């Protein structure tokens, strides 16, 4: 790029060392070369200078240096927003196409300065927040700089705040965008819509088919499944650091911090305060602040002065009332403070309501029921309030805290509509990290008792103990529900015995050879396994009777999502060593079963984990080292899963009439438990 500069720095270093008589010659030569360079450079770059400089890569420029576009007075104005628009009518999906990553491509128009015929600015060039938003999009996976490959277009014309706009001219500026095409696939971000006197709930700028990410939609202006409802960003989020407070009771029960409330609302709030005393705090603006104290950071009640937004952390519930507009920036402050918002704004579409479950983080009360607010909130169980506090804070952290969070959530919502089969799930949107870690999401959540007829596949892992293996095969083959036997031959150096030597059994028997001697081969989802139930059994487990195995299968049918096995083992928290310990003596509690003999569902072992201590141990014996290794393994898993996924139980399953004083002949499983 900077060719001439480079050349000049090298030039002078060479010249002084040359002989004087050649000097002029060289200087002339260099000058000619230099001039040629400059001339060619100018020739190459000059004609494109405006376009390329505005489009050029990361460049150090001021927003005031952007090109100016003059809008003639008669330049076209888009139609008003079309209220019937839906994705299938107004959005051109063909631009998005099918792509393996399932990500939409978003293009951002370059920044221009728009002036009217008289040269007066149409709007402020760009606000800090809109610049942050566009930077976030530009840095995200969604971004493309290729206008031809884009699926979604984001104008750089800042319409976040309608108050700062000249409506007609802004619309004209939109209409002259190179790919405008009636606003198809264009996305506008607006947080403060409408203006006096009637404060429309959606941006008044005519925008034709453009999608609107708006901050104050009502049910009448919100085009469900087309527009995106976004929060009104509170710049305090970036300025004030409110550390998360643990859940639990706070000083006030209900707090109202808004300054510009309609007198009617204020009267109702004050009535609540009069009725319920100190637990309700209704704040107002401060009238007698000394100079230099920003009024926006203070709130007053009578003569008491409170810091805002810190005071929000002192209350369990915080009222978020509608003002002239439905969307309020105070919602963001309230969530940040971990205060549960009580939203009183009839017909308001809550931010990101398409994906967020607001019932878990807020209380919505119809305006008419404001007088009952106190009793309504009192009826909420304390544990639920604590969860809502946590949830509120999590919503703020994930979706409110920065323009980046808002931008990415908006794009993700649109992305999910276009690639619904790859959409982000409810849980990913709504579960705070604490829940994500502590919860168990069972891949087999539907309570089904699989039919007995399908039977199970026995997988026998063997190395070379052929004699014992054959005994196991013979024993297992007696189990009525066995449908197939699979021998995993884990010895690479030795071939399995010839076909004729294997025991003759009534079910198909298959031998699989493995590439490597690993004990985890047992859990490989072999294609040969056709049943849901799998019995993993070692080649030395000969003590289990056919009744015991059949009963194990019946137990598995009732608990198909669990590992069902025989020898119980326990993990214990070792307080001295401060880690999980592994114990295998006869104990009263169980949290694992060894897979020396266990039934499991084919889906269960799909989670792959590696633990070197657990593989490659052959000829296991119950000595002390083994116990230590096992314990280390458990600790490793616990750290991989982020939590201790094992659950301790004190029970085991026995047949209904186990060891009951009852004729053995009439029992389904008489031959059980005799060691």
């Amino acid at each position, binding site marked *: 790029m900077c060719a001439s500069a480079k050349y000049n720095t090298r030039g002078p270093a*060479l010249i002084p060392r040359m002989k004087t008589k050649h000097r002029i010659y060289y200087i002339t030569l260099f000058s000619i070369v230099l001039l040629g360079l400059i001339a060619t450079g100018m020739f190459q770059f000059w004609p494109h200078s405006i376009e390329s400089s505005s489009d050029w890569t990361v460049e150090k420029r001021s927003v005031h240096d952007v090109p100016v576009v003059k809008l003639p007075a008669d330049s076209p104005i888009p139609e008003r927003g079309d209220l019937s628009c839906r994705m299938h009518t107004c959005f051109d999906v063909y631009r998005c196409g099918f792509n393996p990553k399932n990500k939409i491509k978003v293009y951002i128009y370059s920044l221009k300065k728009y002036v009217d015929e008289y040269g007066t600015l149409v709007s402020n060039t760009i606000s800090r927040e809109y610049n942050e938003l566009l930077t976030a999009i530009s840095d995200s996976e969604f971004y493309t700089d290729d206008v031809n490959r884009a699926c979604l277009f984001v104008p750089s014309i800042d319409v*976040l705040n309608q108050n700062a706009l000249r409506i007609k001219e802004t619309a004209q500026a939109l209409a002259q965008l190179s790919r405008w095409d009636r606003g198809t696939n264009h996305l506008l971000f607006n947080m403060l819509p409408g203006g006096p006197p009637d404060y429309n709930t959606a941006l008044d700028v005519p925008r034709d088919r453009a999608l609107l990410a708006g901050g104050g939609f009502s049910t009448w202006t919100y085009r469900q499944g087309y527009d995106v409802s976004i929060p009104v960003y509170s*710049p305090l989020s970036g300025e004030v650091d409110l550390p998360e407070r643990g859940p639990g009771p706070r000083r006030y029960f209900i707090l109202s911090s808004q300054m510009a409330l309609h007198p009617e609302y204020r009267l109702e709030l004050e009535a609540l305060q009069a009725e319920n005393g100190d637990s309700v705090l209704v704040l107002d603006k401060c009238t007698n602040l000394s100079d230099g104290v920003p009024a926006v950071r203070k709130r007053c009640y009578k003569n008491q002065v409170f810091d805002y937004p810190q005071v929000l952390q002192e209350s369990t519930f915080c009222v978020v009332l509608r003002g002239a507009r439905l969307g309020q920036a105070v919602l963001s402050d309230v969530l940040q403070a971990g205060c549960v918002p009580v939203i009183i704004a009839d017909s308001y579409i809550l931010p990101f309501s398409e994906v967020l479950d607001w019932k878990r983080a807020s209380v919505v009360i119809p305006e008419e029921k404001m007088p009952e607010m106190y009793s309504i909130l009192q009826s909420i169980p304390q544990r639920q309030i604590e969860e809502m506090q946590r949830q509120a804070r999590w919503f703020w952290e994930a979706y409110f805290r920065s323009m980046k969070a808002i931008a990415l959530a908006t794009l993700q919502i649109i992305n999910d509509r276009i690639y619904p089969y790859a959409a982000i799930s409810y849980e990913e949107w709504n579960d705070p990290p604490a829940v994500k870690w502590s919860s168990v999401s069972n891949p087999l959540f539907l*309570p089904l008792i699989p039919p007995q007829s399908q039977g199970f596949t026995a997988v026998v892992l063997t190395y070379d103990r052929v004699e014992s293996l054959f005994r196991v095969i013979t024993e297992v083959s007696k189990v009525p529900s066995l449908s197939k036997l699979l021998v995993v031959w884990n010895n690479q150096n030795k071939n399995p015995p010839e076909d004729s030597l294997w025991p003759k059994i009534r079910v198909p028997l298959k031998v699989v050879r493995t590439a490597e001697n690993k004990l985890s081969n047992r859990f490989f989802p072999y294609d040969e396994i056709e049943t849901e139930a799998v019995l993993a059994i070692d080649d030395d487990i000969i003590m289990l009777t056919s009744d015991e195995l059949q009963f194990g299968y019946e137990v598995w049918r009732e608990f198909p999502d669990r590992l069902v096995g025989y020898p119980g083992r326990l993990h214990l928290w070792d307080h001295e060593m401060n880690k999980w310990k592994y114990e295998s003596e006869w104990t009263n509690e169980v949290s694992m079963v060894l897979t020396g003999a266990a039934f499991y569902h084919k889906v269960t072992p799909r989670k792959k984990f590696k633990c070197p201590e657990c593989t490659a141990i052959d000829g296991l014996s119950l000595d002390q080292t083994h116990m230590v290794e096992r314990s280390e393994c458990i600790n490793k898993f616990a750290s991989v899963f982020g939590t201790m996924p094992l659950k301790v139980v004190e029970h085991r399953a026995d047949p209904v009439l186990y060891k009951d004083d009852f004729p053995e002949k009439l029992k389904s499983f008489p031959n059980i438990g005799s060691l």
Partner: protein
Amino acid sequence: MQTRKKYIFLTFLASWLLLFFFGGDQLRRFAFFSGRKAEARRSWPRWTDRSLLKSFAEPEELQRDGDPSLLSPRERRVAWLSGSRGSRCRMETCFDLSRCERHGFKVFTYPQERGQPVSETYSKILSSIERSRYHTLKPEEACLFILSIDTLDRDHLSGHYVRDVGEKIRGFPLWNGGRNHLIFNLYSGTWPGYTGDLGFDSGQAMLAKASFDTSSFRPGFDISIPLFPREHPQRGGDGGWLRHDSLPPKKKYLLVFKGKRYLTGIGSGTRNALHHIHNGKDIISLTTCKHGKDWEKHKDTRCDKDNVDYERFDYQELLHNSTFCIVPRGRRLGSFRFLEALQAACIPVLLSDGWELPFAEAIDWGKAAVVGSERLLLQIPSALRCIPPERVLAFQQQTQFLWDAYFSSVDKIVHTTLEIIKDRLSPHRSRSRFLWNALPGGLLVLPDFSTHLGDFPFYHLRLGYSPSEKFTAFIRAASQAGSLSQPILRLIQAVSGSQHCAKIVVLWSCEKPPPPSWKWPQSSVPLSVIQGRRGLSDRFFPFGAIQTDAVLSLDEDTNLSTSEVDFAFSVWRSFPERIVGFPTRSHFWDPEQGRWGCTSKWTNELSMVLTAAAFYHRYYHSLFTEYLPAGLRELVDGLAACEDILMNVLVAAVTKLPPIKVTQRKQHKEGVAQQAGCGDGAAGTPQPGQRSPRRFSQRQDCLNQLADWFGYMPLVSSQLRLDPVLFKDQVSVLRKRYPSLERP
């Protein structure tokens, strides 16, 4: 020499520089036009003065938010109420909430008028409402009104079309412009446009309509219901077809469709393209043009060949054997196909642009269906192949859950509709989206019980809660003696010996008043006595005295030891949604009499645990009292020993799982508890002419009547019993946690 060297060197350098800067640039430009690959990604500029940019709104402006004194909120609400035309209706503008305040959510159905034809489907809907616990006969109590005029079929070419509906309803004194009315509709509009038009002015009434179009749907006001066939069962309904989870969750076909192809008219755009994705291998898409009167007139070149292929496959067989099913729009947006696919666990691939999906206000369809776009039909196969198997497995299970929870009977569809409306009335006491979309489903979870998920027995694992560590012992005393018998004193002592016991509550159901407090045994746990009033079913009333998650339900003559209680409680904490207890019964189908029977004989199976000694979750008291209709509780009060069968049936209907039996110490004499169930202690297979035939037949009646009310037999059998880990193992008794369970 040296100069020449330098000269050559410099010339070389200069030409190299020239080539690099200009030639390189030329090359770059060339690349720019051909493929742009060499171009650096141009991102949004980092403005040098970005920190100087002004905020989009001054903090003052944000906090003040316009001039608030412009319009009074009260005036605005009044203006909304008076000025809302039908098409802009919302709950806050067209629904009179005040009607629901005094009596709660009550639904009134207009009385049937004579000579007024009502279709089979509509009478099913009406009877579902009458079976609901919200039904009232008094219009002045009502919050919601349902017409008796059949408005299901508004296609005026149809035989069920009712004329002059508009005139009739305007004549109803309760009509009130449609306010607080709910109108059911399955078919609207007619050939050729099939618009959403009902043919009369529904005013401010809410619509519960099938094939709802998003553009005419009034969000938060109307309800989209599924299209269901005339023969859809009134109650119960068939289960889903998924009997077991298979993995990989693949079936014979990936994607199937078999249906009509429209050559012209609305909906033909999609139906006429479906054959393109047919590959004859794993994607079967069969269409026929043989429908309607004059199909031959419009037929094209494909028709004859397609019709032959069409006959080769059976629709039911395809449903059973495919992972995904295309559910395209027909003439209208919804189709029967949708519910058929859902039941068959064939994941619906929806190609019906602009369809407001059934109950979308509550149901998250993204978990159970692929919502495709009609325009992107040809991308569907590759998109489906990319869905990972664990997601497919989750989809399949979710279809079954949704089918069973909300769609399998007319009752469920209608009750879901009512519950959604009820939830809107008090948003703070309503079900979260999570609740609607997780087992056991929104109908079985009462927000009036609690709004906290941890208070229900169903979500512990999913949300990482654990049930409370204490239980309340709840003893029902019904002996006529009026004094404290030996067994009850023993029982109180045993129960209060458990460290997990928080409280003992005695329900005194005798005619004589309970003994004074000093006569009760003193123990470390608080004891309270409640005077029983109602019938047998009042033992399952949600008494305020029960505050713990777990209830240990006992009869006064139950004989239990502290270890038994402790062990059973530890088991219950692992299965908080089930009944965990001691004496059991099992049910069976008696083919000779064609009815259900039950036995108390020691068998290898069990399907009921008697509530004379059982742990269960406190929520089931609320469900029993609030969810079940009053008629069913009266039935139970009238029959002997039916209430615990009903409790078992209810829990099984909710969980779809059997109860759990735990170890009970051997007793020489089988306690009276044995006789409280169905059939006497010694009664084996039921035979007529037993000792107490009347009592016995009442129990059989009970089971059969319950099965009839639920529409199926919810009980599930189990073959196992849970024992302590070392139970009867040959280990020293000293090592066992519950040694006393093994003592003879």
